[in-house]
């Protein structure tokens, strides 16, 4: 009985993805058939179009580089900060206030700040560069990193650190050798979440890139043409964008789930 409900719910969530998968292999002639034709003759035409019409490799490389670098740098910048405001030192209220201020930066839709970013980047020469995108994505990811990692650090009992310090470790080595290994789950979860968000980020990439530094999600939208919608190519592009993230997520999903809860509990 419970399984039945579970299966039904999962079916709802999975069906559109299967629809995209099926359409991406389908020819234009059967794409709009009603009742839907599930047994189709697969064709690679859509994938060929999606990868060859515009410079797919360049976009893929851009996406990979930008995501890895921005998430990595955000982690680097954010974790020490999170550690320091995790309530170990000073006023607890001030720590949480600082955390909260950083989080407040996340509260605006990107369209609001698109124009000033565009102008700023133009005057500084960062338009259509990978570095420009990376800088923005670091800003996007920092609040997440600090928020989540702060939660993880608050979980770690002080006794371990105190013991290490009594043994003569400096603050820095306490951080590196004791705290970090314990919070690995949390780091992995945070990294995963940030990668997911950055990889799929669309608004900023659209405004701030030309042909040079464009990322994959923007490319999927390029099939949304004004003279008819090429369902097949669109779905193929969507599958191509999601597959890397999906594969990655499958491999490390255990970390994601465990990590999300541990960090979230302490806010």
């Amino acid at each position, binding site marked *: 009985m419970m399984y039945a409900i579970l299966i039904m719910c999962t079916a709802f969530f999975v069906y559109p993805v299967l629809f995209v998968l099926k359409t991406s292999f389908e020819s234009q002639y059967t794409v*709009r058939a009603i009742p839907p034709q599930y047994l189709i003759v697969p064709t690679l035409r859509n994938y060929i179009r999606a990868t060859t019409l*515009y410079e797919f490799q360049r976009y893929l490389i851009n996406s990979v580089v930008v995501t890895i670098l921005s998430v990595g740098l955000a982690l680097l910048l954010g974790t020490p900060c999170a550690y320091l405001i995790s309530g170990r030192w000073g006023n607890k209220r001030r720590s949480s206030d600082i955390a909260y201020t950083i989080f407040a930066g996340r509260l605006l839709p990107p369209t609001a700040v698109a124009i000033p970013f*565009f102008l700023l980047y133009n005057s500084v020469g960062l338009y259509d560069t990978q570095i420009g995108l990376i800088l923005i994505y670091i800003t996007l990811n920092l609040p997440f990193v600090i928020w989540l990692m702060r939660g993880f650090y608050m979980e770690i009992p002080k006794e371990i650190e105190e013991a290490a310090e009594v043994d003569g470790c400096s603050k820095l080595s306490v951080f590196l050798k004791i705290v970090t290994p314990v919070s690995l789950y949390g780091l992995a979860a945070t990294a995963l979440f940030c990668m997911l968000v950055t990889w799929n980020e669309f608004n900023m990439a659209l405004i701030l890139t030309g042909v040079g530094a464009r990322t994959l999600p923007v490319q999927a*939208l*390029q099939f949304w043409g*004004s*003279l008819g919608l090429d369902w097949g190519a669109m779905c193929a592009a969507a599958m191509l964008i999601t597959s890397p993230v999906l594969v990655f997520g499958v491999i490390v999903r255990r970390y994601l789930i465990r990590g999300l809860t541990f960090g979230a509990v302490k806010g």
Partner: protein
Amino acid sequence: MSERRRNYLKTVGALAAGLVVGGAAGYLGGTMRPPVEKTVEKTVEKTVEKTVTATPAPPTVPFPTTAEGLDALLKENREKLLAKLMDAAKASSVDWRQCEGETLHFIIRTATDNEPYMKMGEMFKELAGVTVEMDIMPEVPQREKATLDILEKTGIYELSFVDNMHLPLYVAAEAVEPYEPYIEDPKLTDKDFFKPEDWYEPLWRSANAPPYGEPGMHYYIPNCYHHTLLYYRKDIFQKYGLTTYDIDDFEHLINTASVLNNPPNWYGWVSRGMRGEGMNIFTWQTFLRGYGGNWFDEDWNVIINSPEAVEAMEAYVKVMREYGPPGVEGYDFSATLTTGGEGKTALGLDCDCWSTLLWDPRNAKPEVLGNMYAARVPQGRAGRHAGFFCWAFCLPVGIKTEQKKKAAWLAAQFMHSPLGIAALQAMNLVILPPRPSVWEIPEVKAITPPNDWKIVKDLSQKYDAFYDDRPMIPEWPEVGDITGVALSSALTGERTSKDACDWAAVQIKDVMTKAGYYG
């Protein structure tokens, strides 16, 4: 009261006081924009000549009905055209190499002509030593980016695609350059190659963006020419014993749609319903202007809620709701095209690229293939009005160097010369040349499907159809969108037509007041 709460109240009180003071200061001190000096000439009405009907000539060579055949035909002609273009360019008197070494960035919207543009970009590099980077984006983001770039004069793109209805915005802000200095310069232009007078008259007239443009100056170079036409399924019409020559007015149109309506096999009508100044307004204006309505009168008073306009809205809403397919209230161009292609409609009013796109077996089911013909838009008591629209290249003022500007002009000349335009048409059957002479090129003749739409188009051009229908003002995006929302709400039944028009009138008046039209 506790210390903390007192502090809290203090901050809140200070904030509130600051707000009140700031608000008052801003309101009193901040003035409205000074009134804009506007002298607008009334557009000259065409004299209506007697309409003439004609029968189409039968096709000499059978048009391909398979995708492979079509592709082969297009490819063959495209290559011939590109080769011709290259030869003509080399033979022209222009020194193409004068801006060698520059790199240009173009931004164009995704469409079927992207591949020819990219091909021409490569050819141009070979010809002139100038690298062209094409940035291709969907229509809406492309328009945003191009506008941002042009108006902020950041000079990222040397040539941007613009929508002709947005041109007044740019010209009024003095953000685009006129083309005349380049066209008249013998070192930069070969008039035989470029043929600057060879444009359809409405296009070239609106390129001047009257009254904002300097007289005699043109601010864009078109690449296509869309206008609305009526489409009908010849086989269904024959089954019912109808001809489109009988559709003389809107009542007749609605009657025809009701007769043809045969759900769920096919519906009697389809047109655009989605809100937007380029969407439902594009097709609705035929009704609006045909009934005698308009957005503004000569003194810029808002007359969108005049009885004629309300009548026009009611007629459109009626034919869409009663004889259109379900969901037509939200149809954009691709949805109407899909409906036509899947054979779900017998009659439709939409952009003229339907006529060619539906001869492509990839877009049209077998029963539709070869059966979709075109006719002139229906006329009302104020004549036939077909909206027109084009995409065009414009030259932003913000381009960084003179050399780049010259190079951009050379590229525009190359790509939008008659042969260049012809090459753009030879892709996926979207044949909408903005230049009359392109039709005469033999390769273009070979790829034109044998329906009678070219004849219809010519008739429309020469006789009784008006093509200057949407107000060319910088505030048009907002005015148009407001009307689009009003029409959309009338279509979904949220408001009655009268209420929708009144609502739109109030909004538009507000916009025009803020923009300074009423002194």
